[in-house]
């Protein structure tokens, strides 16, 4: 029997992700990669993988997989029930998955995105050095569907560490995103920039891997009319469309955009938390230098 996993239940949106393909923005290629970088890194570490091994990223309702050969898996990210052939097993720890057994990663109890690492990593063919699925431009492996085979690579030399402290912050019940103003903060009125630090937005249900959209806050007001010619965008850029409601760019963001960027949220813990923020939770921006 070949190494790897068979997709029994693909879940709402499950993709293959690694650290993405930065460095190709000039060719129109988004960076992509796991949204919650810390949870992804922990999942790989728990099964003794290299830090850039490809894993699965699930969305809200997990995934169901059957092992084609015995292996070790770990589930991190959004906390959820994990079962192997119906038997509850540990979340956030390496677990042994016998050949033929079914791994059921259940619905997230909080947060949005789960990570399932398999020992050896997923061996989808790399595109421009990455195995990440890029939903915006369609590069990388397809979104999971039932019956799909996910080959696993050979296990590396690192041992499975056994029990491991799970030092991750839980998914947020509210988001406070540090924001460094610029490059286009001067496109907004002084008054609305001052108001930005006081305004409470909500995470919109329209959020996805491209961006965390907001709603319900006080919209930013333009100080100047007219259009901005499209310009290069960075991870964490906070773009403000004409409705005045900020969009925080996540990994699948377009490489250029034509709406002014009021500021940038630094990559790291803040964007990891944004990746786990459910629709409806409050979002504030805190001024950062």
């Amino acid at each position: 029997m070949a190494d790897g996993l068979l997709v029994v239940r693909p879940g709402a949106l499950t993709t293959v992700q690694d650290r993405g393909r930065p460095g190709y923005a000039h060719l129109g290629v988004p960076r992509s990669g796991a949204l919650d970088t810390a949870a992804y890194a922990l999942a790989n570490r728990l099964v003794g993988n290299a830090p850039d091994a490809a894993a699965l990223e699930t969305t809200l309702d997990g995934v169901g997989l059957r092992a084609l050969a015995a292996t070790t898996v770990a589930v991190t990210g959004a906390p959820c029930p994990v079962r192997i052939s119906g038997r509850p097993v540990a979340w956030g720890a390496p677990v042994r998955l016998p050949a033929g057994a079914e791994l059921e990663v259940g619905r997230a109890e909080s947060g949005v995105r789960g990570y399932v690492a398999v020992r050896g990593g997923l061996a989808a063919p790399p595109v421009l050095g990455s195995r990440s699925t890029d939903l915006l431009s369609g590069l990388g492996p397809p979104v999971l569907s039932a019956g799909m085979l996910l080959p696993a690579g050979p296990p590396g030399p690192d041992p499975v560490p056994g029990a491991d402290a799970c030092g991750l912050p839980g998914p947020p019940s509210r988001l406070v995103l540090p924001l460094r103003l610029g490059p286009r903060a001067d496109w907004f009125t002084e008054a609305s920039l001052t108001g930005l630090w006081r305004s409470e937005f909500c995470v919109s249900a329209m959020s996805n891997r491209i961006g965390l959209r907001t709603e319900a806050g006080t919209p930013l007001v333009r100080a100047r009319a007219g259009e901005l010619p499209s310009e290069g965008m960075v991870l964490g850029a906070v773009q403000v469309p004409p409705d005045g409601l900020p969009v925080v760019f996540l990994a699948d963001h377009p490489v250029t955009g034509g709406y002014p960027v009021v500021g940038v949220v630094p990559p790291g813990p803040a964007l990891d938390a944004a990746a786990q923020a459910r629709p409806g939770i409050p979002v504030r921006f805190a001024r950062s230098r």
Partner: protein
Amino acid sequence: MRTLVVGGGALLIELDSADEVAALHAELLRRRDAGELGPVRDLVPAARTVLLDGVRDPAALGARIARWEVPPLAPTQGPQVTVPVRYDGPDLVEVARLWGVAPREVPGIVGATVFRVAFCGFAPGFGYLTGLPERFHVPRRGTPRTAVPAGSLALAGEYAGVYPRSSPGGWQLIGSTDAVLWDPDREPAALFAPGVRVRFTQEDGRG
């Protein structure tokens, strides 16, 4: 030239024209290849800006670049590709009408133009090509098509472009090509990378 800091690790340089963007982009590539620029992960030209992402001290780098003497770009500078085209696009007659010429004159006008890839975006391998004289700039279609065939040569505003794959689009389609615009297994993956000069030749026959 105006330099704007973008977060903790990026710099946006704003210029007055597409020509200035092309010249600065070429100078940035030259200095990067000569090891004079320092580490930069992404160098992204756009319509009026160049973004440098993954740099260590954006403010200091911006101050340095602001002092550069950037030579204007020579028309012969940069790699060149030749793309054979069939002038069979559904908007060919409309574009000829907007230009005030006969449809059979369109290939000559396009063929006489040396285009340059100003920047990429929209889809991997889609290049925004500048160089068409202003009197040949045409508006987008009133109604975008839901599916433009891969390989379509299209015009909109100051730009020309070739769709690397089938996608929705509102540009005016004048022709088609079998050239492979995008192949991730090729180096470089994009035939139209920023700075590349492009000539369109008329493909023989009606193939």
